[in-house]
């Protein structure tokens, strides 16, 4: 007796869904028409005296790789950086805002801003505009107070200080690996080796992560940017 309208309702809904899902995979169907997503692997790890940030370089548009060598590690201030994941447009706009606010703050206070403050600004923007954003970012860097800090700001706009943080679609493949291999008080080289190993594993297993590995080391002395090209990855098709 009630099955008729119910079935009709279900049918109607599935039609609408099919329309919305047209040509999109499970990972990209939440995107607005024309929106690019960085199906991504990003991570940041604290070590003695600084932070290392790491990201893959793939930008995908559905199944098409729009950019195979993009830079997902953006600078917010002299020693403060962030890894972007989610919508490229949203995260670019967010980092531009935070960059602007931090430069103003540095001028007003006459000192280097703290990573904590950078993360707080990012969190405010992410939280207040959560309905309109798809952005998961990791803020990390060096400042004289913390001597190196990492903050994870996932989708809803929480802000969580962490010794290390993972993000992006590829991160799900490497949580076990990083949990097993992370140690407190690592050296810079140990931290670099860890992120390279972990991100290369994620790039091998996650279809929307890939390309090259970009790393950035932020310390009091300054920032060192490096990359490992796709044919020299520590783990993956080049040499499992």
């Amino acid at each position, binding site marked *: 007796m009630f099955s008729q309208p119910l079935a009709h309702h279900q049918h109607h809904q599935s039609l609408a869904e099919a329309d919305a899902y047209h040509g999109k995979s499970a990972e990209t169907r939440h995107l607005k028409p024309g929106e690019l997503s960085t199906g991504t692997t990003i991570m940041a790890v604290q070590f003695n005296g600084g932070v290392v940030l790491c990201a893959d370089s793939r930008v995908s548009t559905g199944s098409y790789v729009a950019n195979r060598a993009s830079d997902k590690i953006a600078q917010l201030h002299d020693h403060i950086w962030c890894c972007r994941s989610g919508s490229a447009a949203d995260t670019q706009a967010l980092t531009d805002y935070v960059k602007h606010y931090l430069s103003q*703050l540095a001028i*007003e*206070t*006459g*000192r280097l801003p*703290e990573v*904590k*403050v950078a*993360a*707080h*600004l990012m*969190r*405010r923007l992410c939280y207040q505009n959560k309905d309109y954003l798809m952005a998961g970012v990791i803020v990390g860097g060096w400042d*004289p*107070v913390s001597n190196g800090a990492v903050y994870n700001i996932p989708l809803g706009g929480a802000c969580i200080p962490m010794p290390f943080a993972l993000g992006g679609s590829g991160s799900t493949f490497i949580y076990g690996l990083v949990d097993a291999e992370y140690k407190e008080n690592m050296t810079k080289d140990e931290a670099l080796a860890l992120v390279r190993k972990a991100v290369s594993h994620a790039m091998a297993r996650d279809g929307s992560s890939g390309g090259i590995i970009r790393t950035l080391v932020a310390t009091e002395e300054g920032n060192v940017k490096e990359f490992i090209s796709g044919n020299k990855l520590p783990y993956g098709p080049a040499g499992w």
Partner: protein
Amino acid sequence: MASSGSGYDLSSSTFSPDGRIFQVEYASRAVESSGAALGLRCADGIVLCVEKPMNKKMMVTKNTPAGRRIYAVDGKTGLALAGYPGDGRQVANRAREEAANYLETYGSEIPPDVLAARLSAYVHYFTLHGALRPFGCTALLAGYDAATQRHSLHMVEPSGSCFEYYAAAAGRGRQPARTEMEKLAVNPTRAAAAAASGGAGGVGGEEGMERGQQLISVAEGVRQLAKIVYTIRDSGGNGGSGASKDGPFEIEMSWLCEKTGWKHVGVPKDVMEEAVEWAKREIEAEGEEEDEDDDEEDGMEE
């Protein structure tokens, strides 16, 4: 007042021909008739002290929330006021707003120098417009900067000027108070400079500053400020009208130091009572010495 007036003193938006803004000067004068507010930077913290004359005969106490002249801005910042209490409350409220707004925006406490700068910008704004009146109050700001682990004392004046001090005073009797504080609160920055350039008395040496002199502790600072308040009242305050000699008064004191975990809190009652007793004894002892001196040097002017 011979120099004032001539039509240039009605608005703070007009300079006089010799480049003065009379309204701002009058505002400073309004502060001068208020009970003194003193601030002292010590080795391990800051002490704020306010002298509150009990100017009505039937008044019971000024130590009520309404009579308060030292305000908490946030947990680590205190504000002592001299001048019109109502104007002072406005400034204190603004300081609280600035502190709260900074915390909300940046997720970290406002550094004292930034708060002082913002507060002085606010006070200064009221010296710019024809439709506004400058604040008739001076604010002493004691703060602790957790990021640099440094405590500091700033003074914001009605003109909107703002500087950092080792010792600052506002209100009636501020000049003798400053002279007294200079004796105990050395300026280590300048003392070091003096030492580097060949010692006290040499080039760069400061008068009344001895080499190697150290900042006192807050515990000693409380005593010394109590003594200074009693001294400036006994001597008739700012230049001998004698008006402040009479009448009871109350002291309000707060500090912010290592011992309080760098929180700005009121000085405990027993500590203050002890300080006041000590101050009275000291002044009495010094008075007796002076009497002896007077006997020896007959006819000396007081």
